[in-house]
């Protein structure tokens, strides 16, 4: 469908039909005193030449560093065909056109996406996507509170091994809805949730337990034990997972005896570039039992009156355009363009390609950890990890890594602010995009800085 804006003539014709002279007159019910008038903070419009130059200059500021930061957004190779197809005119729009009569292609693509996500997560149902992983977690908490009718407490166990930004986002969104997020500490040796630490909550009324896999430290959680403990106590399991890791690890639908109830996460690793932090997309899956409490859009397959296959939005009666304040969520859309890229990426790689990408990322990170380990730098935790690991430094990190920035190297994410108890700790990541040489460069530069510090 075309995405052209209306012409001057279209506007004139529409105004004349409703008997109004100018667009401004449509707003005359708003008293002048309530209008903001000029937008003084908004600069003058730029022409194409000017805006192109501005954007190129800004892009250059980002540089192209050798990047070993993960911490929630991951650098993976994106085959050229992914965005070649995603940016075709048939798909390229910030808005997702849902009208069944005009958008069979888009709807079929979302349906295929949902099918792929349910296969990857081993869950019954997927929605058409959410905004991002962090707000997805908040949606999952709200959904658990609606769906877990055995619990009245609105208390949710939130481990500190969940991404700090996800925890902050969830807190902002749910705290005014009388929901309490109860912080759960982690094991200092393993960097994981010690299942024994949950026993203090056994028998209490808890609505849900959030389980990250891998967790923010890259460490693998004991998902089976945690899931079974939760279900034995009538607690919902909310899985927060990296979709790439699920090609390699046991998917949430198979955790423990019954599997997770709700699964959310950040979809960025599936074909979406880092691009300064967004736009990305969130995904959400759940068990069939809870589908009516699931927020967002779901595309279904049906037949038209001639019996031909067709695609359409389904389960809309709970959404805000129909149920207003009683809707399951204020989200009523999806991240269509990013989902388009992810669907092409997954279709291109297939299950085997995703598995190999995940495995290569894990292998590279193991090599990196080995290369970085020395008298002064040591792995912080002793448990298995996916494609990120925490390195503890005996020397002040600031002095070690700041000089590397100037050499166009991003050595990792410093954890000190979010986890002061870990002291001088760096979260490093090496996906399939890093070569042995790349990792040796980081090793050499860090060793040089260590020598400098130790000798001074």
């Amino acid at each position, binding site marked *: 469908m075309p995405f052209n804006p209306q012409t001057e003539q279209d506007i004139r014709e529409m105004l004349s039909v409703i008997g109004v002279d100018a667009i401004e007159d449509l707003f005359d019910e708003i008293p002048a005193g309530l209008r903001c008038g000029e937008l003084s903070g908004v600069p003058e419009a730029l022409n194409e030449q000017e805006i192109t130059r501005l954007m190129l200059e800004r892009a250059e500021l980002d540089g192209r560093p050798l990047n070993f930061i993960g911490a929630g957004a991951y650098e993976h190779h994106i085959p050229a065909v992914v965005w070649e197809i995603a940016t075709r005119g048939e798909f390229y729009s910030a808005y997702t056109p849902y009208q069944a009569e005009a958008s069979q292609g888009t709807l079929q693509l979302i349906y295929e996406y949902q099918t792929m996500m349910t296969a990857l997560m081993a869950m019954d149902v997927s929605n058409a996507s959410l905004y991002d992983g962090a707000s997805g977690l908040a949606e999952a908490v709200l959904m658990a509170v609606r769906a877990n*009718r055995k619990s009245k407490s609105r208390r949710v166990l939130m481990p500190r091994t969940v991404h700090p930004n996800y925890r902050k986002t969830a807190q902002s969104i749910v705290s005014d809805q009388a929901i309490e997020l109860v912080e759960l500490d982690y094991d200092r040796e393993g960097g994981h949730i010690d299942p024994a630490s949950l026993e203090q909550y056994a028998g209490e009324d808890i609505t849900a337990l959030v389980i990250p896999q891998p967790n923010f430290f890259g460490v693998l959680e004991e998902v089976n034990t945690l899931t079974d403990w939760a279900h034995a106590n009538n607690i919902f399991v909310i899985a927060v997972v990296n979709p790439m890791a699920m090609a390699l690890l046991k998917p949430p639908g198979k955790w423990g005896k019954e599997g997770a109830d709700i699964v959310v996460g950040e979809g960025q690793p599936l074909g979406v570039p880092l691009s300064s932090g967004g736009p990305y997309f969130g995904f959400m899956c759940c068990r069939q039992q809870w589908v*009516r409490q699931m927020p967002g859009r779901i595309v279904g397959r049906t037949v038209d009156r001639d019996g031909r296959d067709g695609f359409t939005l389904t389960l809309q*009666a709970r959404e805000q355009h*129909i*149920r207003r304040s*009683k809707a399951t969520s204020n989200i009523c859309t999806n991240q269509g363009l990013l989902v388009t890229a992810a669907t092409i990426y997954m279709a291109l790689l297939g299950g085997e390609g995703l598995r190999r990408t995940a495995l290569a990322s894990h292998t590279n990170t193991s090599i990196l950890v080995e290369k970085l380990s020395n008298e002064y730098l040591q792995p912080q935790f002793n448990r298995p990890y996916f494609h990120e690991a925490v390195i503890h430094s005996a020397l002040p990190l600031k002095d070690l890594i700041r000089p590397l920035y100037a050499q166009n190297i991003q050595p990792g994410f410093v954890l000190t602010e979010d986890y002061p108890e870990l002291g001088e700790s760096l979260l490093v990541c090496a996906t399939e995009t890093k070569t042995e040489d790349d990792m040796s460069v980081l090793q050499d530069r860090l060793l040089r800085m260590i020598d400098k510090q130790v000798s001074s």
Partner: protein
Amino acid sequence: MSEAPDDLRYTKSHEWVRQNDDGTITVGITDNAQDQLGDMVYVEVPEIDKELEAEDACAVVESVKAASDIYAPVAGTVVEANEDLADSPEVVNQDPFGAGWIIKIRPVDSSAIDLLMDANAYQAFIEDEDH
């Protein structure tokens, strides 16, 4: 005109109430309500033993057009819910005053039921609402 049996009581939010011999009441939605909502696709019932205040939202009926709350006509405790509706919500359309019942409540105070509309008052109410 839609049906409204004489032996039932009615609310302004279109629930009907039947007083049972054991002191409980059965609650459903009226023929008029099911007709307005259209084909039912899902009915969500409350947990047994749930305590309700009058006018608490206690169940949801979802049709092809909308999802609507069912309100408790009087305060009380849920003693039974029609679990058959999970598999066959269309019964609410087919037999709203019979097999399409939704929940049974043990009222805190049975006299509150007398304050609800009788069939004539309800018929007048929906006629008025139509205009």
